[in-house]
């Protein structure tokens, strides 16, 4: 399990070429979409469809990487790779961890 999310705004801005405007836009979108992203992960798990879970975990991995959350992205990558190998049912705990992580990131970003 990853440690607490710490916002590394400098590294994110570095990637965005120092563009505060784009950063603010992405933060808004992340916060706005967090519920639907969590719901999509839950739905994928409930569907029992490994391909769908793999894709949702991949999306979440990308989102976390965008906000420089390497630990969260690594957890999402584990879910993605296990789903690629056909594992779904035993990933409930890991999926719940990802949902919690997404909400944690959203909270930190909202707090600014």
């Amino acid at each position, binding site marked *: 399990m990853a440690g607490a999310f710490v916002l590394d705004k400098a590294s994110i801005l570095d*990637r*965005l*070429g120092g*563009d505060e*405007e*784009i950063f603010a*836009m*992405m933060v808004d*979108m*992340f916060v706005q*979409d967090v519920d639907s992203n969590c719901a999509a992960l839950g739905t994928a798990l409930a569907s029992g469809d490994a391909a769908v879970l*793999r*894709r949702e975990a*991949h*999306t979440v*991995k*990308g*989102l976390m*990487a*965008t906000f*420089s959350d390497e630990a969260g992205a690594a957890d999402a*990558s584990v879910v993605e790779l296990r789903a690629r190998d056909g594992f779904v049912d035993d990933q409930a705990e890991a999926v719940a961890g990802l949902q919690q992580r997404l909400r944690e990131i959203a909270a930190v970003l909202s707090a600014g």
Partner: protein
Amino acid sequence: MHNVLIIDDSDINLTLIKALVLKLGDCSPTLFDHPVAALEWCRSNVPDLVIVDYMMPDMDGLKFISAFRALHGRNEIPVLMITANDQKDIRYDALLGGANDFLTKPIDRIEFSARARNMLSLRTGQKYLADRAEHLSSLVEERTAEIREREKELIFRISRAAEFRDPETGAHIQRMAHYSQIIALGLDLSIAQQKLILEAAPMHDVGKIGIPDYILLKPGKLTHEEFEVMKGHARLGQELLKNSRSEVIQAGAEVAISHHEKYDGTGYPYGLKGHQIPLFGRIVAVADVFDALTSERPYKRAWSLEDACQFLEDGRGKHFDPMCVEAFLAGWEHVLDIRQRFRDEEMPQI
């Protein structure tokens, strides 16, 4: 303005990439969160750059690129695929499948700008070359048309040179050439073939240049020996025109050698029968004889149209190919127009 197509099922990525594309300047992004809809858009729109995510519902980036490349004219358009750092195998597949370059997630603005600019430069170069090729092609077309016009004029003037030594007129050449075209139309020949016979028919009597004046200009009936010499104009015409690289002059050679052949095999120089006679020869035979009959000459009055038509009718299957007579009579309205347009007393139009 470059049209940049961005396809990603993640809204946040779409927004991010759009913002980065706009920062490039002179770009207009088009966004799709679903690859199938993007592909549909691509059927009627041509982007200058495609940026596509790998993992998407229904159709992944590899399949999208493959389907995109299969669309007509989309083979050269630059495609950037977005992959994660740990997807090396997918990158290889994408390269083989038609991606030009990659972007890694999370997206880095410096890397993005450099790669996107490279791809857009490539596209600008492609468009420049395409425009240049089109320009050169139209230039070649223009120059070829000029040469063709000059060729037409020279052919007409050569044909006139022969006719100047003959009681027949320049208007005769024009009329019989247009009658030949009417017959070609009636026989359902292609537009190109109709045009070819229009341009080649005037050369039918060019061999008369080689016939001595005392025979060519003799007012009375030719003796048997004189007529044998006169018949030589068909071969002389072919000799003058043969082995040309010009399609029109090649057709002219064919017309010259065959326009005095008769459908029943009693013509000259070879006594060919029916379809042994080249089609252009069979066509020109009808056109030439009809105009000769209906034209006034120092040694004869013009036949009436009715009598000339009757002559053609009577000659079906004997002198003339019945299909050519049929085609000529079917275009009667046009025949009358041509007679009006090219009168003997008027200067012929080149």
